[in-house]
């Protein structure tokens, strides 16, 4: 074994590295917590934890300035594994540490997995409404819907990222190309009559000439909402059909006819379809008597299974989510104007069991180890 390898191994098995990594992780978590005030919790996770490095703009360059969650977590994992391979000796006096560390390894791996596979959506339902999809809280898609058949919609969904890059889309389902002409991650859309000074719009069709699009700063805060906008040109084999403005703020899809077929074009939140649908039967909002303190929010919903039939009624309320078909539905918000609209958060996290197992292992390991210490201490004192 070369001397060089031995030295490197020496670094990786050392407790000194452990302490340094723990200190680095404390600073990382602290910094990320403070930054939440500006960035909101989602952007903070991407910037600090789901990254190898925390980067900052220096001039025009984006430079790594601090190790990110993946790097620190990864190094801790290497440190822990190599310490157990090369340094620790098996012995009953270290049982607790072995168990706790095994749990910790599982926890770190589990967090890595859940960071990758966990998905969040939300489902907004008015009383009596039924939906078979939930919507992304952050991402949008350009839906081009072939609505020729009144019984059936054929949808081509183009992700927001392709609009941002200006990627031209040609699909075998569509008799035309879709050419993004401009994209704003957040923009205000107003009627031209309300924005007299607005510059001329490149849009020629649909609502396009009637509205003005004003780009806005992206809002990262938790309550903030971003409404993307784009100009999209539709180009057929014989030339342009026109340029449309698309934005979720327009409310309804815009329609046009081409080659004997009817199309609708709409920029909307990315949808996640489920094989079953959910109906909101009743939303309730209770407060404590004589106060404005919220006591409970609850949504009485009906799950309509794909095979038909009456389905089943479920009450979702605070601290009592519905787990169904690999998804968790929990009561997240409501419409304070009407008190008749619920917002359910929908989470898919296939690795949800890992933290339970790993935390139980760590707790057990700590208890065993400290009992061993305590017994030794008591024995010494008696002696």
């Amino acid at each position: 074994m070369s001397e060089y390898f031995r030295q490197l191994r020496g670094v990786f098995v050392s407790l000194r590295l452990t302490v340094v990594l723990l200190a680095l992780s404390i600073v990382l978590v602290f910094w990320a917590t403070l930054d939440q005030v500006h960035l909101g919790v989602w952007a903070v996770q991407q910037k600090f934890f789901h990254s190898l490095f925390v980067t900052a703009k220096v001039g025009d360059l984006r430079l790594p300035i601090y190790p990110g969650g993946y790097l620190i977590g990864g190094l801790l994992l290497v440190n822990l594994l190599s310490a157990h391979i090369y340094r620790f000796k098996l012995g009953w006096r270290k049982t607790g540490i072995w168990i706790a560390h095994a749990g910790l390894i599982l926890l770190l791996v589990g967090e890595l997995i859940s960071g990758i596979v966990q998905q969040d959506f939300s489902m907004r339902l008015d009383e009596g409404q039924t939906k078979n999809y939930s919507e992304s809280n952050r991402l949008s898609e350009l839906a081009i819907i072939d609505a020729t058949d009144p019984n059936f919609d054929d949808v081509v969904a183009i992700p927001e990222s392709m609009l941002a890059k200006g990627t031209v889309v040609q699909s075998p389902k569509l008799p035309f190309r879709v050419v993004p002409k401009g994209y704003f991650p957040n923009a205000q859309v107003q009627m031209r009559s309300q924005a007299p000074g607005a510059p001329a719009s490149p849009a020629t069709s649909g609502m396009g000439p009637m509205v003005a699009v004003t780009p806005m700063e992206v809002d990262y805060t938790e309550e903030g909402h971003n409404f993307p906008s784009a100009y999209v040109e539709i180009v057929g084999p014989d030339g342009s059909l026109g340029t449309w403005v698309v934005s979720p703020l327009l409310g309804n899809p815009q329609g046009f006819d081409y080659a004997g077929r009817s199309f609708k074009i709409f920029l909307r939140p990315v949808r996640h379809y489920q094989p079953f649908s959910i109906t909101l039967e009743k939303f309730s909002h209770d407060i404590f008597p004589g106060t404005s303190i919220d006591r409970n929010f609850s949504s009485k919903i009906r799950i309509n299974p794909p095979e038909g039939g009456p389905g089943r009624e479920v009450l979702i309320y605070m601290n009592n989510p519905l787990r169904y078909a690999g998804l968790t539905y929990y009561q997240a918000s409501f419409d304070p104007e009407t008190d008749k609209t619920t917002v359910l958060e929908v989470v898919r996290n296939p690795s949800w069991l890992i933290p339970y197992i790993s935390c139980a292992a760590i707790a057990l390991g700590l208890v065993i180890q400290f009992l061993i210490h305590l017994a030794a201490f008591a024995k010494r004192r008696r002696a």
Partner: protein
Amino acid sequence: MTRRMPVFVVLIAAVCVFQGLFPQPNAQPAAVTAFGRLPVLSDGRIKPLDSVARSTLLVIQGRQRVELPDGSELTPDEWLLDVMFVPEKADDYRVFVVDNTDLLSLIGKNDENLKIHYDSTAKQIGALIGIVPSSRRRMSFNEIAPYLAQIEAQEKLAEPVLAQARTRFQSAVVQLYGNLSHYLRIRRSVQPDGSTDFLGELLSLQGNLVDGIEAVRAKEAGKPHDEAKAAAIIDEGQKFVGMAESTDLLAIPPDGDETDPNAWHNAGHALLETFGKGEVNPAVLAYAGMAYAWRKDQAESFSHIVELYGSSLDKRFPKQVEKTRIETLFNAVEPFYACMMIYLAAFLFAALSWLRWPEPARISAWGLVALAWSVATLGIATRMWLEGRPPVTNLYSSALFIGWGSVALCLVLEAVYKNAIGSAAAGMIGFATLLIAHHLALAGDTMEMMRAVLDSNFWLATHVVVVTTGYASTFLAGMLAVIYVLRGVFTRTLDKATADSLARMVYGIVCFATLFSFVGTALGGIWADQSWGRFWGWDPKENGALIIVIWNALILHARWGGLVRQRGLICLAIFGNIVTSWSWFGTNMLGIGLHSYGFTEAAFWWLSAFIALQLALIALANLPLEKWRSFRPAA
């Protein structure tokens, strides 16, 4: 003599605590106390009027006693009686604290007209050197009333600004406006503004009710009617609507023996029902009767009405009345205030034991800690029974529980080591946490209702209790380390054996803290997964708890790796105080996240001061050993 010291010391302290259980004869008349026991519904729960009076006074003026301009004092119950029944008198009591200079100038106050003029020379000197206040901080409603329009206008401007982004003036004006409305809501709770004989009004309404309603019906139907009678009824009705809208104190119990708290209503609502039911609500009449008697100074009939009304409630809602009775007693005993004083005494005795009388002073300290801890246990248990909840439900109760948990560990340490260090730490932490709790109580009812997300007794009992124990033990390790530094640097009492045992205690407590903060944090994750479908959400409070876990793990690994020795361990443990205080309070100050349920500007100042102090102690610990008095070779 010194051998019997512990017995005497603990006995005296115990007597001081238990005399609070018995009413002091000259504090206030028995009828006023009975009035304070009457149940009302406020802040979402049924509580005695006494609690309404005390928490209102704490909110608006930062203390419970009311000082009159002539130097005499009112009890909270007497003050409440005047506010509810003789408002023109109460409007002259100085109970609104205003500290902000901009706000003071808005209400026409300056240094000159606020200056207190003392007659005695001693007090004049005292005012000069700051022992007695030199200027007034408290204003009466009548002093502020001429400026209500300006205050309201400024409040409208400041209110939309997020709480943590407000300037001092904005926070002050929002707070004063809130306090004034709070006061007015109580003033208008059982009788309308400007009424001097509400009982007479109600009795005459009762007398004319049948004719009056008939007249109104006829008027509505367009038939001939007695205009004066109809107008009188409509006039009363409008007055009641005004009352119903201007208070949130639900003083009127439901009819019969309905126990649903949602059925309580305010006096205005109850009076509006008069027209449907054909009779004035008897509870409103009882309050109007009390108002009449109190205003006319008829002590005997006042006491008689309170007793009649009280005993009728007693029969209908025995369970709730029992709770309000205990709560009133709890308020009067002020167990946590007593504990605070005893903890302070315990610390002094523990310190004394290192300087003189090692054994008697040590045992006295231990006895005092045990006494204070028992009283605190009873106090917390009473609160749990009153609320029907686990011990920790808000920031206030977390302070009580952190103190309680730390002191419990200290009692164990003292039983093992018998060197007064456990008692000294207990005294310090017990006193400090209760002082913090006292200041947190200034925000209002400390038994407030739980917001929907947090409303789960199971998780409050597991996650919150365990994680709070983790906080408590991390603080305890830090305090033991502080004792190490202070004794070592400033006294000669830290010999090698004491230093070693202190370091061992710190290490043991850090192990304990690691276990509890980890388990508590993991339970929090499980709660989050059960409620929101995600185990970890990087919420500020979650991150704070995580940082404590990692910090404790760091201390243990640094020690196992030989990276730190005794003094290094001590420094790391002191830094643990900073980490814990930030998680406890700092995260709430960010004003974001699911857990941000308490924010005060003053708290920010104190937190900064605390952190600076800990850093200073760490610097002190890093002085070369020959500068430590304990390790300096004897001259």
